[in-house]
């Protein structure tokens, strides 16, 4: 398990330890384990050590380097880092050096955090196992014969293996929560607009949201406090300052109403179902009340998502045309160059989604596909609004299955897509949700329980997450 971020920051700020020694310890873990795990596309050891020395110098001068002083952080490789290659695990962007930092990367750095590397992902964040990476799959640190989940598999694995204290991922349909569950760490998808997307390479702009992975609910809250808050560079960023969240983690759930979805689509493994029941029981023991709620449109979410997300992706990924940056395959004329570049640069899953999305937006099909999916999206938001009129948070599994062996689902996209059946609806609604490790499932693999909350109710979500974590540790 990773070292605690708050503990590292406390020790670095008080001079009990140095950022350099913290970073060196983590780089040592990386060199010991990442050959096998392949969580990182790039390890930025030299610049991390330089940054650590800078932090230590500031502490020596009596300055406070910030709430994440000296904390080693891994950054998903679809977040822009100035002068540092950002590939999205795609051949298409191999060798591209962004001229700017994503807002979240900047905020982490300002808070004293130190980036140790860029983590692997399913190409352009499209996938649920990190097997769609052009640079090879990431292995699950808990059992290296199994996938870490995805698409932020590298960020989840980096934290689970103790190669970084915390990390950043992006979640479009579950890409933080699902790998967090499969690797046994905490993963948070914040309210849409709470965290700036500026510098996040877009997959589906209306669904993408950046969030943290951590070894504990409190560390996740600490990182979210740092990266949240209004950014004028992202028009969809909510014009509010970052909420105070760390203090919520230990507040308990006494009096909270926790929703149990009576019409939740089935198909979860029995061990996962069992952990969910135990989670409800733990919250009741902690003083919460269980309320039955219905989400009748929930079952349509997956279908709607696989129209909306590919539609936006088909447009977002159109810019990779070989004209200005990234890969270019020479050809006789411009159109042939586009085709050759995109054929060589994109993997199968990306091509599949571009085709799906292009089709869904085409003249004559828009109303039947994209238009209808938008309506479903509204119905789901309405469902949640009704549910939250009688409860404060909702509990459900993060993933219906625990981490599966490599190759299990790659040839069956539908079964892969079903991994996200419980995580997608919150993206469609724009709500926050988090996955908290809660016991083990089949094959001794971790199970994650998902806490859902209404828009900007991160404080409630972290109270529930904190209570689950406390109960899970005892379990």
């Amino acid at each position, binding site marked *: 398990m990773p070292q605690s971020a708050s503990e590292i920051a406390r020790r670095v700020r008080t001079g009990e330890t140095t950022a350099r020694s913290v970073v060196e310890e983590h780089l040592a873990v990386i060199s010991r384990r990442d050959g096998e795990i392949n969580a990182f596309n790039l390890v930025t050891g030299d610049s991390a050590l330089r940054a650590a020395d800078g932090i230590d110098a500031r502490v020596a001068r009596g300055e406070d380097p910030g709430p994440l002083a000296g904390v080693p952080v891994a950054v998903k490789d679809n977040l822009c880092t100035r002068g540092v290659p950002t590939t999205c695990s795609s051949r298409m962007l191999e060798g591209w050096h*962004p001229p700017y930092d994503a807002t979240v990367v900047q905020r982490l750095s300002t808070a004293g955090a130190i980036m140790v590397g860029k983590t692997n992902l399913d190409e352009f964040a499209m996938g649920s196992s990190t097997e769609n990476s052009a640079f090879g799959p990431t292995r699950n640190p808990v059992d290296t014969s199994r996938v870490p989940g995805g698409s932020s598999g590298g960020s989840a694995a980096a934290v689970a293996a103790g190669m970084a204290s915390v990390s950043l991922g992006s979640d479009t349909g579950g890409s933080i929560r699902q790998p967090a569950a499969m690797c046994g760490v905490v993963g948070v998808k914040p309210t849409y607009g709470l965290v700036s997307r500026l510098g996040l390479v877009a997959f589906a702009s*209306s669904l993408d949201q950046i969030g943290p992975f951590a070894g504990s609910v409190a560390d996740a809250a600490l990182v979210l406090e740092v990266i949240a808050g209004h950014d004028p560079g992202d028009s969809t960023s909510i014009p509010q300052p970052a909420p105070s969240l760390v203090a919520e983690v230990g507040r308990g759930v006494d009096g909270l109403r926790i929703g149990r979805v009576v019409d939740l689509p089935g198909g979860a493994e029995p061990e996962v179902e069992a952990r969910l029941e135990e989670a409800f029981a733990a919250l009741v023991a902690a003083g919460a009340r269980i309320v039955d709620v219905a989400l009748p449109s929930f079952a349509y979410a997956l279908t709607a998502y696989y129209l909306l997300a590919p539609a936006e992706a088909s447009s977002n990924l159109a810019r990779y045309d070989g004209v200005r940056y990234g890969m270019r395959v020479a050809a006789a004329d411009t159109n042939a160059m586009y085709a050759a570049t995109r054929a060589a640069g994109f993997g199968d899953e990306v091509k599949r989604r571009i085709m799906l999305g292009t089709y869904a937006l085409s003249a004559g099909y828009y109303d039947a596909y994209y238009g209808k999916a938008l309506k479903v999206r509204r119905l789901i938001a309405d469902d949640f609004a009704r549910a939250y009129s009688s409860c404060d948070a909702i509990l459900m599994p993060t993933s219906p299955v625990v981490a599966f062996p490599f190759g299990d689902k790659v040839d069956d996209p539908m079964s892969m897509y079903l991994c996200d059946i419980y995580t997608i609806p919150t993206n469609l609604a724009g709500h926050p949700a988090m996955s908290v490790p809660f016991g083990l499932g089949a094959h001794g693999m971790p199970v994650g329980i998902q806490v859902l909350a209404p828009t900007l109710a991160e404080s409630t979500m972290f109270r529930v997450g904190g209570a689950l974590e406390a109960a899970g540790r005892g379990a």
Partner: protein
Amino acid sequence: MSNPNAHLSTVVASGDELLAGGWELVVGLEVHVELATRTKLFSGSPNRFGDAPNSNIDPVTLGLPGALPVLNRTAVELAMRIGLALNCRIQPCIFHRKNYFYPDMPKAYQISQYDLPLNADGHLVLPSGTVVGVERAHLEEDTGKSTHVGGATGRIHGSDYSLIDFNRAGVPLVEIVSRPDIRTSEQAREYVTELRAILEVIGASDAKMEEGSMRVDANVSVHKPGTPFGTRCEIKNVNSIRALGRAIDYEARRQIDIIDTGGEIRQETRHWDDAQGRTHTLRTKEDADDYRYFPEPDLVRLEPTPDWIESVRASLPALPAARREALSALTGYDTRSEAIVVVVERGQHGYVHAVADAGGDPVRALVHVQQAFAEEGSTPRVPASDLAALTVMEQDGKVSATQAKQILATLVDNGGGDPSAIAAAKGFEAMDTSAIETMVAEAIAADPDAWAKYCAGEEKAAGAIVGRVMKASKGKADGKVVAAIMQGRRSAG
């Protein structure tokens, strides 16, 4: 955006506006104008024409991964100014993505507006009185500029390589879409002329067709009045107002010839070749792109508040129509008179008012400005008080109209001066009446035939006598005085 085939025309050409054979021309115009903002529509990059290629670029302009658009408030205000000047409804609106691949289109989509434009349902009253409906005036971003090197056509097909300048990419545009209410090429030219004047007056754009900051596409069709509209063709590459008139006239004739010989018009986009004076096919409807419009998820709804709209409205200057009315009130000339239209077009209306304010004669001021100030800008160099003094000298009969013109020319050449001093220098001291009377008598003696005809009521014959007097006086004699003396002699018998 509208389908002109779907309804019958409510605007019908008058008889003399119909083309030969009873055909009615139907034209709608799509005008793109670059807004005069300091920065681009969605980024802080400078919006400046003529800089070194690819010097005004940034991650948003280049569509780099992770870059996000942030809407330029000034661009929205300028677009609202256009909407208000064109009597549009300003409404809550959203942006859409228009998807297509082209090398100078950095994101492979253009951020534009689709079913909910910022400005809708306006109209423009032309100086001639013609009313042209404005369907919409929406905001969108411009593309970069490609230069195709090698090959015969200068187009991408067949070229050796292409160069792209992204300075223009992301420059704010407003697309103003007229309804198909235009019935003659003259009206089309008048519409664009008036629109350009409005855009300049309200500070929305410098509207230069030659520099491409104003680009006009014409949708042209022909039909017989009372029948549904004909199939239209869109004419592109019209680079001047004169070219617009020629292109429309050519296209109308082309379409009529096709129909007259039993053919059918294909809906297509056609390219105007100004040198050859003809249009040719650019692309047909069959190979038109499917733009796959969908709401731009990186931007939020734009909802101008009533307060904002009103503050923009309050900041609008007087529009050309109001300026023409004010000049009409000052001079008694019709708002549609050439003098008023031309002077307002040149922005010299304020100068005419200033001459009148300085005690000058408004009508003479208007005419002088129209005739002598064509090369001057909106603030002529001749001080208004100098021109006022000249008109007063004319009014008082101190100089003849001919002399006044010469003095005026000197004023323009020198950028001002004292008109009475110029008159003195030119020897323009007014002639006394007795000297003129002598000259009239001499002229009659020299051409008794003309005088006889004049006395017999042939007014035209007066010209010969007046001409002799003017020649003898070297133009110093006041024509009105000469005429009065001649009339006096005639009625005295």
